[in-house]
């Protein structure tokens, strides 16, 4: 009744006032290009220069746990973009001395772009003494033909002062979707890890209420006002509740399980301790639902905890061991199917082969040449060592940096053989 009266009142007022005020105006649209390709060239260390009020920079570091944005001008090579918003970012990597940063290029001006990008992320690598787990991992994902952010290294200068070695990360946003999936009007969710929860969310069914899934743990990045948590609820229900006979057929509406096994295989080859089957429950991925479909796809994110512990990192960690409530329900159930289990193991073997690409060719001095992964680690180390050593704000000593690089090289050299052994152990003798 009230609405009816409201509408009647509004309609009458509109008749009286019709045309009194000006009509709406449209604002400009911008297009995304791949002009950023040079920025993500990982064969050089880039120089990123920020001009920001010194007070704001100190304030950002002091209030690093907040997402307050500050105005700044950004310069890379001859490209300058003014009036961007920068803020502290990250979860466990948030740091008041060497803050992780997000550049919101269009925060103050909606259609502003920098090299075609709306956002840019600068990882501080405060949880990685080597500085390169993230970049090498994402590069390996792409090497395995899985869509992943492009990355490169940068020296960050704030008001001409060098403040540390950072990793430039391509954000997963509509531009990324368009470039990699050729569409971007679907539903993008960032998995939002609940740090306060003692028991992680592991894809178990929480009931019919969509609010149990969105915005936590699935935080909508597109269609924020109508994030369609109901589709995620159906997806999760199917994972957990659909009968065995219909499971594969029903799941095909929501997920390409073979592709998912490939994603999982690459993650676990890289010994990802904080990923889809991480020690703290599932974490560090984006979920995208394609336009006009219920089909989702996973995309990797934040791989700073890869190369974990040793080359012997078990390929079924937190799948066949670990606390029950940490085990990803989707992974556990999918691996009950022989073909999916084979897809997973085959991906691991493929990763092992890719990591060793070129290893058998003899070097000039007669010694065995390193494989692709070991070469990447070595090349990147030579690239960043000067910048990393002169980074006096990093939370690691230079000795720790060197030790971490040594561990990484060892991992890269020995991981393939270790994975092959583990895969062989899992397969029945033929």
């Amino acid at each position, binding site marked *: 009744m*009230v*609405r009816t*009266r*409201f509408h009647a*009142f*509004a309609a009458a*007022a*509109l008749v*009286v*006032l019709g045309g*009194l*005020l*000006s*009509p*709406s*105006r*449209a*604002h400009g649209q911008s297009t995304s290009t791949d002009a950023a390709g040079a920025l993500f060239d990982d064969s050089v260390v880039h120089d990123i220069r920020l*001009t*920001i*009020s*010194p*007070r*704001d920079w100190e*304030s950002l570091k*002091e*209030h690093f746990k907040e997402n*307050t944005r500050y*105005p*700044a*001008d950004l310069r890379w090579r001859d490209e300058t973009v*003014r*009036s961007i*918003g920068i803020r502290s970012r990250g979860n466990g990597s948030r740091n008041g001395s060497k803050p992780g940063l997000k550049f919101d290029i269009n925060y*103050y*001006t*909606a259609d502003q772009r920098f090299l075609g990008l709306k956002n840019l992320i600068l990882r501080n690598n405060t949880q990685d003494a080597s500085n390169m787990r993230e970049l090498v991992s994402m590069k390996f994902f792409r090497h395995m033909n899985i869509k992943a952010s492009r990355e490169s290294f940068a020296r960050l200068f704030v008001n001409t002062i060098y403040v540390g070695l950072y990793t430039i990360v391509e954000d997963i946003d509509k531009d990324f979707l368009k470039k990699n999936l050729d569409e971007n009007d679907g539903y993008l969710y960032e998995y939002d890890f609940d740090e306060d929860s003692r028991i992680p969310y592991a894809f178990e069914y929480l009931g019919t209420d969509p609010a149990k899934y969105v915005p936590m743990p699935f935080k909508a990045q597109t269609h924020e*006002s109508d994030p369609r948590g109901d589709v995620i609820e159906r997806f999760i229900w199917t994972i957990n509740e659909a009968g065995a006979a219909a499971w594969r057929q029903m799941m095909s509406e929501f997920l390409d399980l073979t592709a998912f096994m490939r994603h999982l295989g690459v993650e676990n080859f890289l010994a990802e301790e904080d990923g889809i089957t991480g020690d703290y429950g599932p974490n560090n991925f984006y979920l995208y639902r394609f336009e006009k479909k219920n089909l989702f796809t996973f995309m990797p994110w934040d791989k700073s905890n890869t190369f974990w512990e040793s080359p012997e990192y078990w390929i079924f960690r937190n799948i066949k061991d670990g606390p029950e409530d940490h085990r990803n329900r989707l992974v556990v159930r999918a691996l009950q199917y022989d073909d999916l289990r084979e897809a997973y193991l085959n991906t691991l073997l493929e990763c092992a082969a890719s990591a060793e690409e070129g290893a058998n060719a003899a070097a000039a001095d007669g010694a065995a040449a390193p494989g692709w992964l070991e070469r990447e680690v070595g090349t990147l180390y030579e690239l960043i060592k000067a910048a990393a050593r002169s980074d006096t704000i990093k939370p690691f000593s230079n000795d720790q940096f060197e030790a971490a690089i040594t561990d990484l090289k060892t991992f890269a050299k020995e991981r393939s053989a270790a994975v092959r052994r583990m895969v062989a152990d899992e397969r029945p003798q033929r």
Partner: protein
Amino acid sequence: MLPLLTCLVAALTLGSQPASAADPQAGAQPEAKTEKAKKNEKKPKKEKKAKKKSDKPAPDEGPTATDTDAAPAPAPADQLEPDGKGTRVTWKQHPSFRIGSVFRIDLEAKFQEDLRDTYVGEPDLPRTQLHRNRIGVQGHLFKQIEYEVERELTEKELDAGKTPKSPWKDVNVNLTFVRNAQVKIGKFKIPFGLDQLTGVTHNDFVYRSLGANYLAPARDIGLMVHGSFLKHGLQYWSGVFRHDGDNARSSKIQGGDETFAGRVTGTPFRSLTRGLGEIELGTAVTVSKLSDDSFRPNGLRGRTIMTQHVFYEPVYVKGERRRWEADVDWTVGPASARAEYTWVSDDRRQQGIGDNDLQNARARSWYVSGTWLLTGEAKTRPVKAGGEFLQGGWGALELAARYERLSFDSAGGTDVPFRNPRAETILPAGDRALTLGANWTLNRFVKVQVNGVREQVEDNERNPVPNGAAFWSRVIRLQFVL
């Protein structure tokens, strides 16, 4: 809503009591009331009491020194009944306890409940809201000490997650030892802005104007001297305050610091405009200190009327904040018109990205408004119905309209304009609003207001609706005042 309905029934019942029991003049016929109003207009100089537009205050007509439409604070002696001897409890305007002329305490209550609707996509807006629920006391001790205490109960107006303010509204003492130089101490409204100083239950519209809400300072703690001359033909208020009011502050905005404020009103055309009603002119200034101690911007912000959508974010400021306003208030018979212009300038010393000085941040607002009582009563604030509802009449019905604009920019600047809070040239942002309304005053206690507000946020990127379109907001308010 149940307590409100109970109050409503009680109010209608109370309002329908014989006039002699509740209010000797409440049941007067419209014609008689109108005649009396006319008489008052024709012979203003013969009035003995300090009543500007009416000879008897309504329940919510508190003697607030800064309330432009309440009567100037009557001396305690004026409030005494002719037979006011000894200790007694009365209920004429408010429940009241009195001890001769030595002590008086009146209980007051103000309840405003809203049904609201606005553009699609505003999920945070509660469709029903217990908007304002205040209780308080006021009175006097001896003849020269007046006091007032008022507290918000629901805090819906205060916060809603956006603007935390103190639940204490007016908490003050007014000393009347010198009639033309009264001294007020405590928390009360800084004397600035006609619309802001109009009592919350006296307003012609559900929401105050944009300038009153976001540029005028509102309440703060301070000390003020005030008084009147020439039979209230000239009034003044001047004071110093701890900060620059609730409207300049929020959980994230520190607001201004020490503030000086002064306001003067007058009726210079009184002798020239007989028969054309009363025209009162007013002007006010404030000067406040502005610090950049907070790491967040400390400037003013612009928000829409009902949804409080931020269309202009605060900028970094430091130095002084200067406000100036001018207003005119014209009342003639059943009609009234108001207009007000407000200008605010904030220094931005050392607030550039390179610690350089920036051009001042500037905010401006204006409105024009008019009302017409269809039922013929003389316009007062609050309106007094000639024939009260359920007492042989239908109450007073009034139409109202207001057009206004609030805008922000910088006073010059040679750089390209930006929205960022350290921009040398601030990209202009503004909001235009048209409010159409109807007010139905059932009796002394109950009023129903219906408003439709059409807003147009001028910066498309800060517009809460797509494509920079204008949008309507609608509200029905039920008000009960004791």
